[in-house]
């Protein structure tokens, strides 16, 4: 099999399998931490806008 296109596709398939395997672990760990951080941000009560009296009083404290 001397067709260079055939070897190009073979390389793409091999790289895809390797890349998917890597992403599975990498995004599995990193994405998990990001979900944890995001849910912590959402769990906090909403911040009032900067000109709201609550925000002004907090600034003073």
């Amino acid at each position, binding site marked *: 099999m001397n067709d260079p296109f*055939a070897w190009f596709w073979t390389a793409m398939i091999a790289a*895809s399998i390797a890349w998917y395997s890597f*992403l599975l672990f990498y*995004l599995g760990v*990193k*994405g998990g931490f*990001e979900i944890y951080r995001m849910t912590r941000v959402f*769990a906090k009560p909403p911040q009032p806008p900067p000109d709201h009296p609550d925000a002004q009083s907090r600034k003073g404290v």
Partner: protein
Amino acid sequence: MTPIDWIIIAVYMVGCTVAGLWMQRYVRNVADFAVAGRKMEVNLGVASLAATELGIVTVMYTAQAGFQNGLTGALPGILTAAAMLLVGITGFVIVPLRNARVMTIPELFENRFGKRVRWLAGLVIIIGGVLNMGVFLRMGGDFLLNITGMDSQRTFLLEFWGWQFELKTLELVMTGLLGIVLLYTVLGGMLSVLITDYLQFLVMGLGIVVTSVLVVWNAGGTGFLAELENTHQSGQRYQDKEEEPRKDRIKKEVAAVRKSEGREAADALRERQRTEYGESLKARAKELAKQGVLVDTAKKEKPPTAETMKHPFNPVKNQNQGIPWIVWQALTSIAVVTTWQTTIARVLAARDAHTAKRVYRGAWFYWVGRWCLPGLWGAAAFCYFAAHGGLPPGIGSETAMPRFLGLTLSSTFTGFLGLMIAAMLAAEMSTDSGYLLTWATVIYNDLIGPVLRRPLSERARLLTVRAMVLAIGVFLVFWGLWYKIPGNIWEYLVITGNIYLASLFALLVGALYWRGANSWGAMAAIVLGAAGPITFLIVNAIVDEDSSWRISGELGGLAAFGLAFAGMIVGSLVGRATGRAIARPIQTTAETEETGP
């Protein structure tokens, strides 16, 4: 299916549903619901984008492309990956779009071209997007039934409040699946979509990697390349010796009959020839399989047809592809990564423009695998059936791959079938939830919102978007399960997608990079860009398959891009001359920060 298979599927389904429902507690307003409060970070964005853009329908059409065109069927994946990398490096379109802090693309158009353009763009997006999504459920159902070998004709009688419904297996399974997706998407919006996408990405990724390794192993490693080449060459010999001369002969006979006896007699002759030839194919199926020809008997209302593998490695030599087709696909790829609303939803949900670019740079190579791996399964399915007496009855190019996996890999190890089904359920659910949310957001944001006299309360807005998600879900059950695609799945998806891809791409480029663009040009781009694909769909639905009036996919697609850009340029020039066109600069966060107090 063994108990272990069922346990794997049950654990996945329960875990995913619970996680999706859990996130609804954090939804406080439409921004949380539609774009996760713009708090998404890079890796979650990559996982979500990857999961949403890989559904069962993706696996089905990429495998069909592999079945018909060998490994070169994966070319659109290479082109999309290259486009995504380019956009991820340069920030073309996505950076100014994210900086504009809009929730949808049409919202940006209102800033630049006025309300009417926003509304029209929203309408075109919805028509193209929902029609496009309309076939997802059926394709998903076909996959699941074929891989498990379930009886698709088995019917179930359901009774609700005195009403009786008769549902077949496919309708029942897919309606139940959509019901679960709707439940968590309606309640948790983008937050639920992100979390479930993450879980689905993991399950789906594992299933795809394991299946691909097993397919390569079963196909004999690199020896598979020679097998593909041989299958293609023997099919090509059949094409040259039997198929092409037969087509020429029929064409001449039909033309002669048309001349002497009229059109009706010619149509009847063509139909008779087709039926007779279909029957002869069916009778010779085993013998033809040895020559690299598979007999497709999937469409019950049409006679069987012959399938041969086109050039499996070189897209320029492949009869289904060629240079115009490649140009069309390259343009579509750039338009998809900059315009496709479900992809752009991740850009708009990103923390900032820099994060959006990083999501693209992190996800680009995923597109290569998204086409190459299922394409490999499809090509392997062709070779397998060619070596094993042809396609089973009722199986065609769409369903050959799941049947092949079910026949060859289900006994590889206990739990494989469970893993594969869970992976494909994950693929289907992540795509459905992402698409439902995106189109519902566009309907609310760009069709309903702009025509309201008074803005709705936060609560009413949230309720409206949720109702839209539900309405699209109901539409999908009816359209998706009862509509049958006339031809190749990928071409149907590209053409319906092109209804808006071409026009919105021209609009976005004009809005962001051409000061001379105005509302007249925008209107012309939308109308002309949509006219190409709609003409394609109508003409091809009316004329006969052999008719010279039939429009090829690449012509319809390229015409859409050409017309959209011509409309934008000519319309803007005319609009400027009349002095009545709207053209405002876009306010971006970067500008606000620089010029603000």
